[in-house]
């Protein structure tokens, strides 16, 4: 059973309001019938209704279930229960699971088995009409290629008029282009176009970032035009970038990679339309990176995921591609580890880590960010900017969000100015620290509710 810390629990919170409400319930006085077994903890919390809410937590994954009507996940009761557990596990009595807890856990286990069984069954019967299906696929390909052609024209026109003109153009223009890409069934291109709008407004140095972005989009469009001549794995990467979806079933049906996976870090990003959660896993045996992506539209809750800094024995199914990285969890069991990453699996120098990044880029030039797991990093301040420095003296600049304010001070305080082991996301320009590891513990540095 893993040992939860307050920081790890707060990192699970979907937003700051939930974290604050959870803190309000983080006292055992607010709870009754607190209990735990090897796999779960539970308790009753009196809300505004007549009956107290039944809150239960799967201890391995930190997944919560509560009878309250909240649409947030985890809800404040789940967070509160975990916070009490992090604070003082002793107040939970080790007893037999009551029915409402056991049923839920068994249901989860059954669903997980079903998923495995489903993945292991041979693919469905061929559709009734392969000809019709092939025709539909050809129609979509034709539409996407129209989209690619339209995007090429737009891009050329943009460069002809100049980026300065694009910056002052009406706001709606890029959104209209993006909408056309969605209509052309190439939502991936729509994302690239919308990102252009963000970069045009990204402040100092925007023109370099924008041109770099457009250069990569250009590379994607050229690759799309020659899709038939590309090797299959690269075709898969290009198709993914264009926005072709792979069905989860197909991915799960592919070969899996078994390992003890460490969830080293997690970050949640919000924009107007979509909330995205990235969880980076590192295989202990395979030394392989895997990325779990979860999405939720608008303000809807994210699906339950793997808590940062947990360890699990799992078979992961990777999406096909030149650089298989995005993955789905096929079957998992908590490994029972404490989630500590041995510094030995981290790179010893920035040079070494960047070499891995260059290799990754060679396989897939469109990757947006890549994890760097580095040992013995120290913080440095030069030219009014904050950097992470390795023992050899090489440095990477920290991302704007970590140049000031609570994220910077928290990182600084936790490191105490000494060498530390850090997981960062690198986008080619700046580094976003996700998790700090020391001898005893790990500290999430980003998350819904961290100060």
């Amino acid at each position: 059973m893993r040992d939860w810390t307050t920081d790890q629990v707060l990192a699970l919170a979907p937003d700051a309001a939930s974290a604050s409400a959870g803190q309000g319930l983080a006292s055992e006085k607010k709870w009754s019938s607190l209990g735990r077994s090897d796999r779960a903890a539970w308790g009753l919390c009196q809300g505004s209704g007549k009956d107290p809410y039944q809150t239960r937590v799967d201890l391995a994954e930190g997944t919560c279930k509560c009878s309250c009507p909240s649409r947030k996940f985890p809800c404040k009761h789940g967070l509160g229960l975990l916070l009490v557990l992090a604070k003082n596990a002793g107040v939970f009595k080790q007893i037999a699971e009551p029915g409402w807890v056991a049923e839920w856990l068994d249901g989860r286990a059954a669903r997980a088995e079903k998923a495995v069984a489903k993945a292991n069954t041979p693919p469905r019967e061929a559709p009734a009409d392969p000809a019709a299906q092939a025709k539909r696929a050809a129609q979509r390909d034709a539409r996407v290629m129209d989209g690619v052609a339209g995007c090429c024209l737009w891009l050329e026109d943009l460069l002809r008029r100049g980026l300065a003109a694009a910056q002052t153009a009406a706001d709606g223009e890029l959104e209209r282009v993006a909408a056309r890409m969605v209509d052309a069934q190439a939502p991936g291109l729509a994302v690239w176009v919308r990102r252009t709008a963000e970069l045009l407004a990204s402040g100092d140095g925007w023109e370099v970032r924008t041109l770099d972005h457009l250069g990569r989009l250009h590379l994607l469009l050229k690759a799309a035009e020659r899709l038939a001549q590309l090797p299959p794995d690269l075709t898969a990467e290009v198709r993914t970038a264009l926005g072709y979806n792979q069905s989860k079933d197909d991915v799960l049906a592919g070969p899996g990679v078994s390992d003890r996976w460490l969830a080293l870090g997690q970050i949640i990003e919000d924009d107007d339309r979509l909330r995205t959660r990235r969880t980076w896993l590192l295989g202990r045996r395979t030394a392989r990176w895997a990325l779990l992506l979860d999405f939720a539209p608008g303000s809807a809750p994210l699906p339950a995921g793997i808590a940062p800094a947990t360890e699990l024995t799992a078979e992961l199914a990777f999406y096909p591609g030149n650089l298989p990285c995005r993955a789905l969890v096929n079957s998992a069991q908590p490994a029972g580890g404490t989630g500590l990453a041995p510094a030995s699996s981290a790179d010893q120098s920035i040079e070494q880590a960047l070499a891995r990044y260059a290799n990754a880029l060679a396989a897939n030039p469109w990757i947006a960010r890549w994890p760097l797991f580095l040992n013995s990093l120290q913080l440095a301040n030069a030219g009014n900017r904050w950097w992470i420095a390795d023992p050899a003296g090489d440095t990477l600049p920290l991302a704007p969000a970590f140049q000031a304010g609570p994220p910077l001070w928290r990182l600084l305080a936790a490191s105490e100015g000494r060498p530390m082991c850090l997981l960062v996301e690198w986008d080619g320009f700046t580094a976003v620290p996700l998790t700090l590891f020391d001898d005893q513990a790990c500290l999430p540095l980003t998350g819904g509710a961290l100060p």
Partner: protein
Amino acid sequence: MTTSPPTPTLRLRQLAVAALLGTDRGGIAEASPQRLLDAAALAGAQARAGFKPRRVADRVPPCPTDTTPIAPRAAMATLQRMLTRPDPLLIEEWAELAQARGVRVAPAVVPALLAWWSTQPRRSPRIFAACGKTGPWLASLNPAWQRPVATETIPDDADALWGTGTPPERLALLRTVRAMAPARALAMVQSTWASDGAAERQSFVKELAVNCTADDEPFLESTLDERSRGVRHAAVGVLAGLPDSRFRQRMTDRLRAMIIVQGRAKRLIGKAAFTLEPPKALDPTWLRDGFDDKAGEAKGRRATWLQHTVAHAHRSVWLETTGLSASAVVAALAKDDYAQAALAGLFQSVMALPDPQWAAALVDHALDQKRIDVDSLSDLIAGVPQELAEQLALRCLKHASMPPADRWVLAAAVQHRWSTAFAAAAIPTLAAPVAANRSADRVSTVFAELSWIVPPQTAEPLIQALHAALDGEDNAFIRESISRLQLRSEMYKEFAT
């Protein structure tokens, strides 16, 4: 001479300048959008894949090693929880417990604590100390946290600042210096006295009440001759707290003259042992000692003068002149024509320089009245040192006819953290049910005050007493007070483990 090709990063920047203007402008090597995009894609990929990390030597100096252990995990969790809705008193208590236990705040939580602490009007040094060595180290890196730390010592340029600062700056400086070096503060005030205005003089004199000793007396005595009434009154207030001042001696002599002791014969026929006779007209030389010659009617004026005299005279004069005990003096005063003024003066006198005998005499007298003056009693209790305050409060709480709601008020007048002995004796007296709605409101307000100051070990009995007093009445305000008290009691246990 050959020039080496530009690095990919530089190349990307050059292309970005071209892209800014657009290829329609002409005059650039990449004349078509296609060529410009090809070049950008190549330079971008090269720049990313061949990223050359910069060499930066300026590492952050490491935080000095702190061997103080980190606070227990549960206590750290409570601190983090409190910081989501910070309550200065509770955080202060957390720091106090941490200090007593010899532990400190976990480094990762220090920024959140300092961010809150540095914006507080009153910044407790104890909270800063609880951050261990991480506190000063982080503050040295964050300019926003430096200033609050620095105000805890006398600045190097104190004398210059005293000469040129704005009135609020000078007052803050005087406060700091007076607390740490009283004589230097006196010298500062004297150095600019001639050029300071009446309002400033008055505020400076008031500050001298802190750490006041006989060394300050000559200067304070001289300020009694100031033209400004405000300055004179401020000086009277400070001198009243100096037990052996010449001011108090003068007041004692005046009081002695006002006490008219009756001869044996009159006493035998049942007359009072003494009567009070304030002067009919004010001696102009008395004005400098804070007497007022304008206030009220003739009779009212005389009462005011009497009260002012009683408040600042040595109380021993009563015993010397009358030969009575303190409680007998109070009993006799209660029958005098000037009873009200004299007793009010005595209350003031005891609050300024408390002693158990006189305080007990006044409390007993007040408790004997038909209508007990709870406000005066609670002022008196609040104005004396804790041990005496607890004695007096217990006297009141155990008084049979004390209304239940007033018991809560008097218990809360012991403003310091209750001793365990007092808590044990006081809490059972509070459990009696209170009557009307207004009393219940009063009790819940008092309970809110108590929730910050009672010893956390007594949380449960006090909560039970509250439920008994309010007959189980419940509202959000009461619940909040109860959970505050429970939080403190949990915090206490968390540090004890």
